[in-house]
């Protein structure tokens, strides 16, 4: 990760493309890459910044050095979780839901404009799908996560 960040020219393409840099002052992919190349990883692992990327991939698309701040951010997130740093609860909740039920969210009854409710069956949609053997599925995920 550091090797990759070290080729950054600090040209500024990524913050000018980034939808978040415009809205949240503390978030700037160019500065984030600079910190990675200076080895200030620990500081980043504790920062909120790594959790405020929308994954729009514009930085990856436009980086003239093919660094991809997006991929660096994902790597930092996984490192922060592995090391038990502070991270948004929603991140691991989604993973936990998949491990237990196979999917991020369970089918709901959705509101209509006329204030009614519709679910899959009332719309004639087939039942939602999930892994047939959830126990085996969870074990497999645990095994591959090692």
């Amino acid at each position, binding site marked *: 990760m550091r090797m990759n960040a070290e080729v950054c020219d600090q040209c500024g393409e990524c913050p000018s493309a980034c*939808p*978040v840099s415009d*809205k*949240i002052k503390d978030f700037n992919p160019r500065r984030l890459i600079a910190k990675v190349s200076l080895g200030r990883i620990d500081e980043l692992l504790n920062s909120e910044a790594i*959790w*405020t*990327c*929308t*994954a*729009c*991939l*514009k930085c*990856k*698309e436009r980086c003239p050095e*093919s660094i*991809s701040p997006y991929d660096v951010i*994902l790597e930092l*997130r*996984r490192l922060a*979780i592995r090391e038990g740093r502070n991270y*948004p609860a*929603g*991140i*691991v909740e*989604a*993973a936990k*839901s*998949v491990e237990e039920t*196979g*999917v*991020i*969210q*369970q*089918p*709901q009854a*959705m*509101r*209509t*404009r*006329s204030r*009614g409710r*519709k679910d*899959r069956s009332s*719309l*004639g*949609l*087939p039942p*939602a*799908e*999930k*892994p*047939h*053997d959830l126990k*085996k*599925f969870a*074990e*497999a*995920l645990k095994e*591959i*996560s090692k």
Partner: protein
Amino acid sequence: MKYALYLGCTVQAEQFGYEASVRAVLPSFGVELVDMQGTSCCGYPSHSSVNLQAWLYLSARNMAIAEQMGLTLFPLCNGCHLSFVETKHALDENPRLKRKINKVLRNEGLVYTGGGELIHILELLHDAVGKEAIQRAVKNKLTGLKFAAHPGCHAIRPSMLGRPDDAENPQKLDDLIRWLGAESMDYPGKIDCCGSSLAATAGKAVMEIAGDKLLAVKKHGFDGLVTTCPFCFKIFDNRQRAIQATLGEKSLEVPIFYYTQLLGAAMGIGEERLGLELNQSQVDPVISHVYGGK
């Protein structure tokens, strides 16, 4: 044309207007949709920020189910589609991890070879079904309406992995809109993000990011915004009230449609079969225009 239909978490749990309209329109074009059995989340975004191997395993597992069916995998969600493409790329580059994943997949009787085909809804409609068939199917021409195309980030980036449309100048969704008899044109922010993946962590920023897009769409005189991404739809349509409140723009009304809903309406398919009652934005004037054939 026969495809393995992969819904993904968001569509099967709540974005019923997308699924219903896809199921209502595609068979008319000779597209056979086969429901997949035993699928799970594609791993994005559930595991992409948590554990790399688990993410790639989940995507590979769903691709392996499609391989077992002997069919091209057809995910409805931009996020799932990119997750499959990223996984294939990663496992092509890393045979050791591919072997490791296959060792675990064997417990469920699955094999991921990486040889399966994948198709995005823009490719299916634009490239496989095509202009002639779509124009022939249109009964209610959408004349006099102008729609902003919003393909969504993951449908167009990153170009290095091969996406359904151009990263900087996507035109397929615009073509699809025009084939219905409506107008479509570029607008500032067309390839910008909806912000949805920050919904849990930075709600206000998301509303501002999405609001910028809706303001641009309104300013340029569009009658609505059209997308094929469930995450983008969720923000622009389901959360439009919250966007209005955050921006202090109570009159910021932009009707939001899944492309397949508009296509179905143009084909004369009843609105209940297209799940149009579930759109929360003010779609009624456009719907009456289309069905009224004005």
